[in-house]
């Protein structure tokens, strides 16, 4: 194991713990939020910073101990490309199956026929 300078150790630990915290809060959100649509918000957003923190930690660790390493950025790129798409598909499925929403949800659709499956 190479010796890490003190500042790098602190910085890397900070990013990894930050990432881990957000990944955990995202999972906790799945448990705590009241219905399907609100639950979708937790993993799509919080995991981006969760993974982002771990990626930053990894980039720093390998850049300090070895040569500059940036290919972790690809993970971030793929995540940014895929997270909104999977969230969109899940939301779409939930919408069309008309899953139960909690009562405080306000439905502000002015033209509901634009979003329904029925061709009438």
């Amino acid at each position, binding site marked *: 194991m190479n010796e890490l300078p003190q500042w790098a150790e602190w910085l890397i630990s900070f990013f990894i713990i930050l990432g881990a915290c957000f990944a955990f809060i995202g999972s906790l959100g799945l448990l705590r939020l009241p219905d399907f649509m609100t639950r979708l918000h937790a993993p799509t957003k919080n995991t981006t910073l969760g993974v982002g923190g771990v990626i930053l930690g990894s980039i720093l660790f390998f850049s300090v101990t070895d040569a500059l390493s*940036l290919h972790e950025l690809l993970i971030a790129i793929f995540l940014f490309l895929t997270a909104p798409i999977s969230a*969109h598909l899940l*939301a779409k499925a939930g919408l069309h199956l008309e899953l139960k929403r909690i009562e405080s949800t306000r439905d502000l659709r002015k033209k509901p026929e634009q979003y329904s499956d029925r061709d009438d």
Partner: protein
Amino acid sequence: MSRFLPAPWWSLFLLTFWLLLQNSVSFGAVLMGSILAVLIPLYTHRARDYPIKVHKPLVALQYGGILLVDIILSNFNIAAIILRPRKQIQPALIEYPLDISGAVPVTILASTISLTPGTITAELGKDGRSLLIHALNVADPEAAIQEIKQRYERRLQEIFQC
């Protein structure tokens, strides 16, 4: 563009991608990446039926920066909502009228909405003129729509001139 570089931005992206995959900028990696960055668009550009042109690359960069900051802020936002014990949240389904058109700009806007504070794009209207957004916690839906318009849609309009 020219005959050998039908999509220069796409080529640049592929080259960067290749260098990241290789995790080095040696001569061999750059050479191989350049060859791929020329060959792949030549082979695939016929399949692209959605010609796009980035009119304002600088605004696009600025857009990326704003998006990054907003994603980080939205993470803290959502974390606070999750952690606050039994807080009454106010979700809403909002209809968002689109001013921009075209497959690529609308896709980018929809993805942006999904990535940023408390909103997810659930559906695109059948006529393609509106998005249905699910918001996790909004007090004033009209203000939320205006914010998306000011922050993102206006810039996309500038970038793609659509």
